């Protein structure tokens, strides 16, 4: 990689909003983006005049497949009344809106625009589980699709390679699931705001009420080990290793640093931004790491002058429990082959030294794929601006957080570091 990257001029985040994520029969993509945009408008401390927005970048992976509607840029610029400003859709599978964020940053850094709205949207729940699996698999590499891989299958495959190489087991992945679910009830935007214990107890109560046999689970792991409660989807990925099917939207307001004070006295700064591409299972350098994530991290750390030790908390792309394990190693938070020990020792819990997915992650917050990248950055925004409520990272002087977004079989990866100065 070439020597240190830098932006032509600084870029600040001054507003953010997201819809609640969930499965909605009575809301479509426009309704969800409107909800996110309304929240963004109220989040800009000194207010936003929408006619000041110079451009819109919006991430969407596959509403074409899920909803038979593409070309979301102008649909959304019309919705919020900012036509005829340029409106561009970005696509990078589940990393689509992180790419929108990145395009927005570059558009401002180049000096061409001063105020850019970035975001993402996806509407998935009106399809069957099989249709969603097929739609998402469009982002796998062709050789994987041809022999019948699904995304849970890709990460199940990676898990068997990781287990064989490092001696980890599905029990370690359960620790990731339990950890993320412990954060979820603290996030009012979470699609599943329940702990594993909550859900286990609900099922026990239900069984008692029915008068049938009552499950004998004592611990959360008893529950997760029971194939009736936690059936395999793509072994060793079970139901509770997988993020849900979600609808949702997210957006953020980016401005040139030099005008940030017109919007807020408390902006966040884009300290580092990186992106990489990667090969699929058949030709990746190893099955237990994503080269795209390593490149994204290298770019972002290089630009910021920061190291993994400087990152105080992070959102990482836990589409599957196994994915979170790879990312915390690839991003340099833990050494290769040691991430699973860190997780099982509790180091990534909200009160641990390196909190991961304080929002509950994709697993609990939900994963409307095109909206996810920016929604992860919104969690960083909430944490750094002291708006995370009970899930605020309990560290003094919270200043630096990061978000990692992944698309495909490690095909696209981004890493973005935000800083409160």
């Amino acid at each position, binding site marked *: 990689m070439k020597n240190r990257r830098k932006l032509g001029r600084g870029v600040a985040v001054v507003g953010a909003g997201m819809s609640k994520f969930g499965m909605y029969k009575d809301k479509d993509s426009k309704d969800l983006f409107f909800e996110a945009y309304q929240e963004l408008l109220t989040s800009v401390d000194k207010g936003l005049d929408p006619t000041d927005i110079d451009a819109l970048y919006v991430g969407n992976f596959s509403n074409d497949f899920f909803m038979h509607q593409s070309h979301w840029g102008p649909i959304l610029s019309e919705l919020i009344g900012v036509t005829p400003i340029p409106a561009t859709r970005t696509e990078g599978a589940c990393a689509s809106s992180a790419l929108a964020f990145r395009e927005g940053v570059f558009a401002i850094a180049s000096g061409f625009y001063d105020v850019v709205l970035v975001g993402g949207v996806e509407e998935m729940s009106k399809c069957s589980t099989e249709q969603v699996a097929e739609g998402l698999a469009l982002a796998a590499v062709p050789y994987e699709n041809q022999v*019948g891989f699904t995304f*849970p299958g890709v990460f*199940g495959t990676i898990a*068997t390679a990781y287990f064989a190489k490092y001696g980890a087991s599905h029990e370690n992945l359960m620790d990731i699931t339990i950890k993320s679910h412990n954060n979820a009830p603290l996030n009012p935007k979470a699609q599943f705001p329940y702990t594993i214990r909550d859900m286990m107890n609900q099922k026990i109560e239900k069984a008692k009420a029915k008068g049938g046999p009552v499950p004998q689970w004592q611990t959360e792991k008893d529950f997760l080990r029971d194939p009736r409660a936690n059936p395999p989807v793509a072994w060793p990925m079970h139901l509770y290793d997988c993020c849900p099917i979600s609808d949702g939207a997210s957006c953020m307001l980016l401005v040139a640093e030099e005008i940030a004070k017109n919007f807020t006295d408390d902006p966040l700064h884009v300290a580092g931004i990186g992106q990489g591409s990667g090969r699929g*299972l058949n030709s990746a350098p190893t099955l237990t790491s994503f080269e795209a994530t390593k490149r994204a991290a290298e770019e972002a750390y290089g630009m910021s002058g920061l190291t993994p030790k400087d990152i105080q908390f992070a959102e990482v792309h836990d589409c599957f429990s196994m994915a979170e394990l790879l990312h915390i190693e690839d991003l340099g938070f833990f050494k290769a082959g040691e991430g699973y020990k860190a997780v099982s020792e509790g180091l990534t819990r909200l009160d641990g030294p390196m909190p991961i997915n304080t929002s509950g992650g994709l697993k609990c917050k939900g994963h409307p794929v095109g909206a996810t990248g920016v929604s992860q950055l919104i969690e960083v925004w909430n944490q750094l601006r002291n708006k995370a409520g009970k899930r605020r990272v309990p560290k003094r002087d919270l200043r630096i957080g990061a978000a990692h977004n992944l698309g495909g079989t490690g095909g696209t990866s981004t890493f973005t570091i935000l800083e409160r100065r």
Partner: protein
Amino acid sequence: MGNRAFSDISYQQFLAEEKLMGSKCNQCSAVFVPPRPICTECLKSDLQWVEASGKGKLAAFTCISIGPAFMIAEGYDRKNPYFVGVVELDEGPRVDVRLEGLASKPDEIKVGTPMTVKFLHRGEGDAEKTYLAFEPVQAQRSVAR
């Protein structure tokens, strides 16, 4: 053979002929299965066809309960899941494959198991397609041929 493009279409045509083919770089000897038109090691575009031996070992696998439409059409579902995975060929490259003849319980399957190629022909007429599959070496010995 020499006239075919180093492409996915050629790769698939060879599979239908029960040949597992790749490309080998004449400059640096790197081998690619499926074939590539550009050597990703030295970036030269000077390659020749090579046939892989069809032997390798299981690098990773999964057992899928919820598959895409074409696997559902073959009768696979939550009650009848199927195996896919990655095999590392003796020549070095890895291939994405369907897996046959493995233990039915996934936790009894060992990464590293020696595997051998099997070509699965499915469908008829225009819909006929050949899938690349591998099975354990022992499984093949026990099948009468």
